[in-house]
């Protein structure tokens, strides 16, 4: 038997960028400003606005704004991050109901966290595993997601309203909850 050497064909990820972190969560105070980062997927804006409207009532938010990034296949750039951060106290990015768009919406949420804005990403349930994997790659393993059933794009207003109720508690907790992603406690 003879031994040969094989070269590894995979690429190691570069070190995490400096400043990647979760934002502090002081809580959504009265008058807080919520921004939705809408990726333009079908019914995404409608669903997120329904969730935002409920949050507005619950937390007495001051405003709800929509930032339309125009394409679901890109992550917001640094200028957009700065502009959103300047006018927001919390962010919902979405809708991740496909592979590429969920990846990019997660990227949006992580960038806003890095800019100090409590955020979350809204995805549909079939992408839970995918986003868990991407979150590892993006340097934030275990990052929270708000999840609604898949699909969203074909649902009518009543069905979307039901989805909004499902997502409401998740989004609320994630925007005001602990700043550290706690590992599952062993007992």
């Amino acid at each position, binding site marked *: *038997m*003879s*031994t*040969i*050497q*094989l*070269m*590894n*064909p*995979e*690429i190691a*990820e*570069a*070190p*995490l*960028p400096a400043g990647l972190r979760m934002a502090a969560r002081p809580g959504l105070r009265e008058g807080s400003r919520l921004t939705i980062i809408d*990726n*333009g*997927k*079908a019914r*995404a*804006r409608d669903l997120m606005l329904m969730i935002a409207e409920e949050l507005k009532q619950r937390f007495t938010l001051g405003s709800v704004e929509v930032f339309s990034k*125009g*394409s*679901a*296949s*890109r*992550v917001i750039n640094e200028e957009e991050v700065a502009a959103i951060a300047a006018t927001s106290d919390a962010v919902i990015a979405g809708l991740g109901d*496909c*592979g*590429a768009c*969920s*990846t*990019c919406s997660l*990227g949006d949420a992580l960038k806003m966290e890095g800019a100090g804005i409590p955020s979350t990403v809204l995805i549909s349930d079939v*992408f839970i595993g*995918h986003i868990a*994997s*991407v979150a590892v*790659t*993006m*340097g934030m393993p275990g990052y929270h997601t708000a999840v609604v059933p898949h699909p969203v794009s*074909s649902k009518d207003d009543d069905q979307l309203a039901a989805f909004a109720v499902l997502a409401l508690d998740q989004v609320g907790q994630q925007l005001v909850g602990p700043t550290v992603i706690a590992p599952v406690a062993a007992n």
Partner: protein
Amino acid sequence: MDKLVNVEEADAIEYIFERGWTDGLPVVPPTPQRVTAMLEAAGLKAEELLGSVPDTRRVVTAGITAINAVMAGCKPEYFSIVVSALEAVLDPAFKVNTVATSTGGAAVCVIVSGPGADEVKMNSGCNVLGSGNRANATIGRAVRLTIANGLGAKTGKLDATSIGHPGKYTLCFAENPPLVPWKPLRVEKGYSSEDTTVTVMATEGPRQVANLLNETPEGVLLSIAAAMKNPSTFIVGKGGQGIVLLGHEHGLAIHQAGWSKQQAREFLVEHSRVTPAELEAAGVRLESRTQHDMTPAADGKLSTVQSIDDIVLLTAGGPGAGWSAYLPAWAPIIHSRSVTRRVRPVGEALPDCGPDICEVP
């Protein structure tokens, strides 16, 4: 894991399967000697960068690409073409992270135009999209393996493909030189006839287009346009790109009627447009207030491709009947664009940017 691993030679292929480094088919074990030969054939050093993917913090080197090219079964003389294809894939306009993670299941279609294709004996004739030619098969496979291994685009990791298609193993072919005065793809893209270029587009699977009884340019092109405007193709009505591969008889019918390639593309742009009623008849709902603008134009129609520049039209395939092929981009143009790169001859220096452009004060 380590960059180098020792294995029994007889176990190497099984070891590579176990590591998850293959596309499901056996590969050539990437020994340092084989990888070095690949790099030397293109005059490249392992550490030279081809590009990066900031979204996933990956930097793609010539070395990693060479390892995957060895595994794909490439001969060293193919490597310059593989490198140019990867450089095109890593162009920001291609948005490879989107292409590689999408549920849409895109393949990277690689088209080689120019004398370099003949030099490595690529196939541009019979069975052009089929099996049997080593250069076609392994160049395309090397691109796919580099994306999978290098960028982590594998099932269960970053590749969220729902269905996919066999082109995700390999999808690469050469252009058949068109009859004068038609210009080859590379010249249409602004390169010299003596150059060799690589064009990449993220595509769905090929649709074969049959029309065996009509030799008019309108008849042939209407059949292709019918394939292009199929309502269940994702880009229809949204504005995407596509590759139209004119088979021998179809190319002749258009050429001998005196049509230019530009005329043919203009015809296809116009006749692949659809009405909302055609989409709705196929159960397709129009998107409203989404990233895809599906507002009909003044004449009530929606574009499948908005510009002649969005159609890569070329000749390829063997003679015999009346076949062409159409490969639609996997998603509308806002998500990815086709990119063309010139294959740099071995040893060619990078362009000199002048004495004052690169100065740092």
